[in-house]
């Protein structure tokens, strides 16, 4: 049973993704019987390369695919180098999980309403600092080179890379190593960069590549913050896919394959960059300088996170103000009147998407928890640690969503299935699983084996000690993993949009759909609902164990 479950994890993840990627390429070469075309041709590719502005779309995807991980990783490493062990660090560590749960779309909307020419920031500094009486006529959000897109992605990916680094760090004994470096005369920040960074990087390499793939092919963030003339490649592929003219499907398939190629190119460029930086690092480490750059590295590292937090807080503030603002003339920092009218107007539209969101996230997370716990339990019982190829877990994060989801749809169309809720839940499961596994596996593997040993010397069967000992002891980490899973599911746009064929709506798909045309007030209402849901999950993960174990002081330090 357990063996079956652990194998099913690999199957569940790998099969649809690999098959989907393969299948997606069939229509790209003209083969798609459901649309009456069963002959191979290169027509779709010819069409694709005649699309105006294609080079620019590809370039913007590539740029954000490389710069996002580069900037995010630099900030995370400089932060860790300069702040490890400080008071700031304690705060940031507590905030990193909730920050990660901030849905991409809501974060992007908040950022847009903060930095837009008529946004909160411009209002606060106008006309005092700028003299602007009217919003300046400059393109900040949706700028042609995707700078605001890049900024939005960095704000989202820094918490992710930070969390991954924090999880990997303890095995490197950073404090110890930095102390050794300091006794050899190295300043702390430089010392960290020389003795920790080179061993930490290989441990976070997979997550970094996941960031490349995401940044390269993101759809929802690019729809909100990205350039429009032309948009990024991924956004264009989606629009071809959603076009009422079904013949554009062939073009969309070719575009999806091109997207895969662009993502792979970005990864290849990154790997080359990695070699170059590695070479520089080896020379720098051996050079023996102990002070040079300390001040700059320290200043950037210490200020990056507070700035990031301020941006996020500002975005939140922008959303809240917009959601409750009545009339709000331009240079005023605050609205002249407040109203709950926007909420009242949205209430009836919210109910179905809200219900769907909760249903989909709860069921996909429960399924994921069952599969992950079964896998970890079977790993524990067989005594073979990490037997499953770990990289398979990252598959849904390493192949652009657009590509394999597209393939899964083609597959369902071959099979003649209608889009349905089950399919959407399955699609969410693909993305929820890796995060639930990543968040639960350490706690599960590190649980003191003596608890189980004591239980079995007391005559408890493996099943009994699983239910009566391990699950209760791991209640808190299981709930945290569940909260993370739900947050991931709630923030998903593309799987719902594609597998639900636009007929199954969630808060996220509806909010992103509002991008074109709806008022800021309305969008803010939806974005706030979207970002509140994960917070409810995290609150529950925090308070349920506190309540259940309120009379069990020993349960506070087994976490």
């Amino acid at each position, binding site marked *: 049973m357990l063996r079956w479950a652990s194998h099913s994890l690999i199957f569940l993840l790998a099969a649809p993704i690999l098959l989907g990627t393969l299948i997606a390429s069939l229509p790209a070469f003209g083969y798609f019987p459901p649309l009456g075309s069963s002959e191979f041709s290169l027509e779709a590719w010819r069409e694709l390369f005649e699309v105006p502005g294609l080079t620019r779309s590809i370039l913007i995807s590539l740029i954000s695919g490389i710069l996002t991980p580069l900037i995010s990783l630099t900030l995370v490493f400089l932060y860790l180098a300069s702040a490890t062990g400080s008071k700031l660090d304690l705060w940031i560590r507590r905030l990193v999980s909730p920050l990660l749960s901030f849905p991409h779309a809501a974060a992007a909307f908040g950022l847009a309403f903060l930095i837009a020419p008529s946004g909160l920031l411009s209002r606060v500094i106008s006309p005092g600092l700028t003299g602007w009486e009217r919003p300046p006529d400059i393109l900040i959000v949706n700028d042609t080179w995707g700078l605001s897109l890049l900024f939005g992605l960095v704000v989202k990916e820094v918490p992710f890379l930070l969390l991954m680094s924090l999880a990997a760090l303890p095995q490197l004994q950073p404090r110890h190593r930095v102390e050794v470096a300091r006794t050899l005369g190295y300043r702390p920040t430089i010392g960290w960069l020389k003795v920790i960074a080179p061993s930490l990087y290989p441990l976070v390499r997979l997550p970094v590549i996941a960031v490349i793939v995401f940044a390269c092919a993101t759809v929802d963030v690019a729809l909100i913050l990205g350039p429009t003339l032309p948009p990024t490649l991924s956004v264009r592929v989606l629009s071809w896919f959603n076009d009422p003219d079904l013949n554009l499907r062939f073009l969309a398939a070719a575009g999806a394959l091109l997207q895969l190629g662009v993502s792979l190119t970005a990864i290849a460029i990154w790997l080359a960059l990695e070699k170059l930086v590695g070479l520089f690092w080896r020379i720098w480490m051996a050079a023996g300088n102990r002070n040079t750059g300390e001040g700059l590295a320290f200043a950037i590292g210490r200020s990056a996170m507070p700035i990031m937090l301020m941006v996020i807080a500002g975005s939140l503030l922008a959303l809240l103000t917009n959601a409750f603002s009545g009339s709000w003339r331009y240079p005023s920092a605050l609205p002249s009147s407040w109203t709950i009218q926007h909420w009242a107007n949205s209430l009836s539209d919210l109910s179905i998407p809200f219900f769907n969101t909760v249903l989909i996230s709860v069921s996909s997370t429960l399924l994921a928890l069952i599969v992950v716990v079964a896998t970890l339990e079977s790993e524990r019982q067989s005594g073979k640690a990490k037997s499953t190829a770990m990289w398979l877990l990252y598959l849904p994060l390493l192949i652009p969503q657009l590509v394999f989801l597209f393939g899964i749809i083609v597959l369902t169309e071959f099979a003649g299935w209608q889009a349905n809720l089950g399919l959407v839940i399955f699609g969410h499961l693909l993305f929820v699983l890796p995060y639930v596994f990543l968040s639960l596996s350490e706690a599960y593997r590190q649980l003191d084996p*003596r608890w189980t*040993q*004591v*239980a*079995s010397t007391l005559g*408890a069967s493996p099943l009994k000690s699983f239910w009566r*000992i391990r699950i209760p002891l791991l209640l808190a980490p299981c709930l945290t993993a569940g909260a993370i899973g739900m947050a991931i599911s709630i923030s998903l746009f593309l799987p719902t949009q594609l597998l639900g064929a636009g007929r199954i709506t969630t808060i996220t798909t509806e909010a992103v759909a509002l991008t074109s045309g709806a008022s800021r007030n309305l969008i803010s209402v939806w974005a706030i609902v979207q970002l509140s849901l994960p917070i409810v999950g995290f609150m529950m993960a925090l308070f349920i164990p506190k309540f259940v174990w309120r009379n069990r*002081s*020993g*349960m506070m330090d087994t976490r």
Partner: protein
Amino acid sequence: MSNSVLELNDVSISLGGKQLLEIDCRVGSGEILTVMGPSGSGKSSLLAYIAGFLAPVFESSGSVLVNGDDICSLAAERRRIGLLFQDPLLFPHLSVAGNLRFAMPRNAQHKSQAISEGLHDIGLAGFDNRDPGTLSGGQASRVALLRLLLCAPNAVLLDEPFSKLDTQLSEEIRALVFDKLRASGLPTILVTHDQADAERAGGQIHTLLSR
């Protein structure tokens, strides 16, 4: 009162072809065998082997007999071998009574009464509903002993159970543990590097060599 006998017949444990220890002995009802040796001599591996937790990387030969039956092929939970660790390891999510109840055989009669009497017996009357996290080190050790006894094992292993207690307390707990085990007639193997433990146990002493 148990009348069990624990026998280790030509037990040998090795790791990667290198022998860690060998032992051949018989522990009668109510007797305490002390196994001494420096750290790294394989003391913990011996207990893990008898209790059924030895990691698969170790190779072992020989047999463990309880009342003449070889238990080596049994799963740990079917061996009925009690084990006291260095730490009391009371399950933190269960009450004191919950810990004791967890250990009792399913068909035991009058569980609550047996628990209350057992607690009274070790000087902890009325502790039934206490949170184990609030017990002192000595109290927790007593509860761990009672938990082991209520499970009605056929033999007992002690893995340096007094080493983390301060001198006076360890004297007291040691006396209690030895008295109870002798009174129950359980064959016991004590692993330790503390000479005082061996003297108080008063039984045979087997010394492992460091290799």
